[in-house]
């Protein structure tokens, strides 16, 4: 399947074909992932957005909903190197990043060799990330941010494309170490895995319990994904769209003038500027997925939930009254007006 996206020419004359081919390639990828992960179309779309933006994603859902499968299938469909780290309280940072080991060569001389950890992969699944201690979590988060690790004083770059998909379980919180807000902010998107509908559940039962094990076909080359990641950054964002994203971010702050009554009451701290960047970046990826070369305000709205839901710190009142961040984002989308310049 040749879906390579041409880079722009020296004269800068890519045509609609570039966008159209990107859309085709991404459509094929999405179809292939959805074939394995049935009934989670929206989740797959958001995961691809995460991949296109070179961001990291936090996946939250109850056990058995396919969190791990999603990441694994994504890696298989794009021919990415995949590794999985099961986070436990006794996991150490070196277990993730790797360590230097004392080795003897053929002459009997001792030397320190670096043994790479599981973080050295394109797609890293950090399963149940909230079960490891904060120290170990920090090691992962540094790699996420820098796309590199430093071991024994040597900085080692991680392979591109690189994406960490961390999962956490919203139940069984006893004995866990929830990620602090500052670290949550480093995840570009937080995806929530919904429980499938009755029909989807039945279909899952039929498809996954047969004699033959289903395999994932390759839907995209690794280089194509890198090209697409570059193309996303070129998608045109008009000033009014950026202004809208900024307004949306600003409105998450309870002390802002544009904050709604709900935000003032139920939010303790609003989203950071990084959230605004994430809104625009995810909006670009969403526009490309829709086959457009420009971002619309509606694209920002479409990605507002996964971008903002983990970046607003709820107040005690919100916890008491069971107000979720999703509901607050709904309110924001409904109340923040379109930009209407004179």
């Amino acid at each position, binding site marked *: 399947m040749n879906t390579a996206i041409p880079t722009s020419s020296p004269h800068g004359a890519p045509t609609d074909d*570039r966008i159209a081919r990107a859309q085709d390639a991404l459509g094929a990828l999405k179809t292939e992932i959805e074939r394995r992960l049935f009934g989670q179309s929206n989740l797959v779309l958001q995961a691809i957005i995460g991949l296109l933006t070179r961001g990291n994603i936090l996946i939250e859902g109850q056990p058995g909903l396919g969190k791990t499968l999603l990441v694994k299938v994504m890696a298989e469909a794009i021919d990415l190197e995949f590794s999985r780290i099961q986070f436990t309280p006794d996991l150490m940072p070196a277990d993730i990043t790797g360590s230097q080991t004392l080795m003897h060569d053929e002459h009997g001389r001792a030397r320190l060799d670096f043994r790479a950890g599981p973080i050295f992969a394109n797609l890293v699944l950090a399963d149940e990330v909230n079960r490891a201690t904060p120290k170990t979590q920090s090691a992962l988060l540094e790699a996420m941010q820098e796309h590199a690790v430093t071991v024994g004083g040597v900085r080692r770059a991680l392979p591109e494309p690189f994406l960490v998909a961390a999962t956490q379980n919203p139940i069984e919180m006893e*004995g866990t170490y*929830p990620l602090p807000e500052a670290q949550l902010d480093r995840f570009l998107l937080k995806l929530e895995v919904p429980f499938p509908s009755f029909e989807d559940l039945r279909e899952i039962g039929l498809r996954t319990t047969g004699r033959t094990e289903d395999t994932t076909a390759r839907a995209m080359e690794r280089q194509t994904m890198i090209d697409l990641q570059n193309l996303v950054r*070129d998608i045109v964002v008009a000033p009014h769209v950026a202004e809208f994203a900024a307004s949306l971010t600003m409105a998450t702050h309870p002390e802002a003038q544009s904050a709604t009554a709900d935000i003032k009451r139920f939010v303790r701290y609003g989203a950071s500027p990084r959230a605004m960047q994430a809104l625009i970046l995810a909006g670009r990826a969403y526009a490309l997925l829709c086959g457009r070369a*420009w*971002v*619309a305000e509606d694209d920002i709205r479409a990605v507002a939930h996964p971008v903002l839901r983990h970046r607003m710190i709820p107040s005690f009142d919100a916890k008491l009254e069971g107000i979720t961040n999703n509901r607050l984002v709904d309110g924001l989308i409904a109340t923040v007006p379109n*930009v209407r310049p004179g």
Partner: protein
Amino acid sequence: MNLPLSNLLRRWAQATNRRVAMEEFARAVAWLAAGGVVAIGFKRLPHGLAALGIDAPPGLADAATRPSAIVWIAAAFALGVVLRGVIRFVRRRTAPFRLARALDARLQTRDLLATAWAIEAGMIQPDPGLAAVVLERARGTSSGIIAPVAPWSSPTRALATLGIVAAAFGLLPTEAPLPELAGTANAAETPTAPPLPDAVRERLARTAEALAKLERRPALREATRSKLAEARAHLESIQRDPSKSLGALSRAEKALRDAQREASREGLFDPAALGRIDAETLAREMMEAIERGDTDTAAAMAEEIARRTEDASDADLEKLGKAMDRALQNTEPGSTASREPGSTPAGESGKPGESGKPGESGTPGESGKPGESGKPGESGTPGESGTPGESGTPGESGKPGESGKPRESGTPGESGTPGESGKPGESGTPGESGTPGESGAPGLPGESGASGESGASGQPGESGSAGEESGSGGESGGPTRGESERRARWRNDAERLAERLRSGEAGGPRSELRELAERMRERSGSGSLERELDRALEDVERARSRQFEEMNRGEGEGEGEGEGEGEGKGEGEGEGEGEGKGKGKRPGSGSPRAGRPGGKPGPGGGRGGDGYGDVSPPPDASRGPAEQVDAQAAGPMRGAVRYIERMAQGQRPGPEYRDVHREYQDIAEAAVRREQIPLTRRDYIRSYFEAVRPD
């Protein structure tokens, strides 16, 4: 379409703005036309009302002020319409980018045109390849746009309003078609109503003086004081320019009504101002108020003295007692020094004949057998329509005094009213002494009306009752016997209280002072603020309605005569008053029941009931001393719970609560640190203490 998108958008935006300007212009013209029709209709409205046989309200009928009012209102309306049009245009006018947004929304092109416009305007420098893609798409889209300008939106509401108003306007008669209105129309062109008669002006001058005195009453509420001042200023302006009396009277009446309303809502006196008065002044004012019958002021002062006895030291009590003593010594019982000017003796003020010319034509005196005619109070306002002063010979015909034995049958308390007004008085054979002009009651209809009441009994004594009436004149002239006795009693009470205060007793005197204040408040003495205010308002009302009638009547002569015929009125009252005044030596002796006053004492006579004997209701035996409830009976709550509960009830956090909060938070924090609390609950605990933090 080879034109750059920005040019295209600019051209469309200009066309849209032209369209919007035209729409707003049409809308403004329609509203202005509707306003013009309303203005003309308003000018013609009195004629329309007249055609329907409805009297135009006073403000509307004022032909002198109406045109200028119309001009001002029309100008304000026109200005408003123009401003609204401008604001609407500014809001609706569009710019190229805004138009691009609107077209994107209409064509569902997801910000394509707006983004392309931003690229062309150089607001962003995107990747050239992708920019070309966006521009190419945008041009393709724009070439398919057929009608970028919004369709014409006609000002339907404005036009509908114009249609309705014009239709209503068509129903109004034109200005001059009604011959019977011609006189009125001419009159309307004359500046104003005819000037006030001298007598009325004098009375209004006295009313203004009375108001000035009222203004000086201590501790009066500022709002009331300013309303009184306003009314007085209007009355004084009549003296300077009688030609504008009608408007001034209307404004004075309004101000007085406002003052009344304010007084009934907030009370007459300002508690803060009362609190600033020193004890000497307070006591003196109370005693003087008692002597002049100003029960409102006296009651307020008594109440304030009672308040000061709360938590007062022995020295303070003694000071209060001494102040009262001095006030008692310095205030002569029955002294008239403090009497209000408005209540000059009847003989002086009463010129009953002044207002009534019709009386001349009336021959009521002849026909007037008081018994028959004597319901003056009901027919009312004799002073205005006419009166009897001259024709008042009725005294002759009615020698009620002789036959009158009203009081034998009377029981004062029941009928109430007669006490004051209707004490026929055996001696009051009006005719003998009474030259009505001299003794005539000042002409407040109510006062004389009361006499009518007693007259209603239709017995010979009636005319005698008329004599009584004159007694009612005493209301304005001096205290009745009952009132004098009452004042004396209050003085005695004050003396006794002063003595007890001096001896350092507080509780008893305080409740007695409050009872005294209550009694005085119920009594509404003749010099009370409330009564003075009523009286002033009544004077103004009468003068205004008279002026208004005069104006509507044109010359007014013909009509005046007709009315003057009124038999009952002229006779009964005029005479009755006149005579009674002069003679009423024993007004108090009339037994109320004899008069069978039957109510309707009329405004001035009012209140009766205690005219003779003090029929103030006996203290309610069942009431007893006020019950005291100890809110703290259950004792104060103790400990931290108390402070937490207070905080939960919305009270401001005090230092105690801060201590409790700090202590509890420390304990919780220690538990959290010792890891006794699950990790996932620690944030909850910290959030909780954050939420209930005192500041």
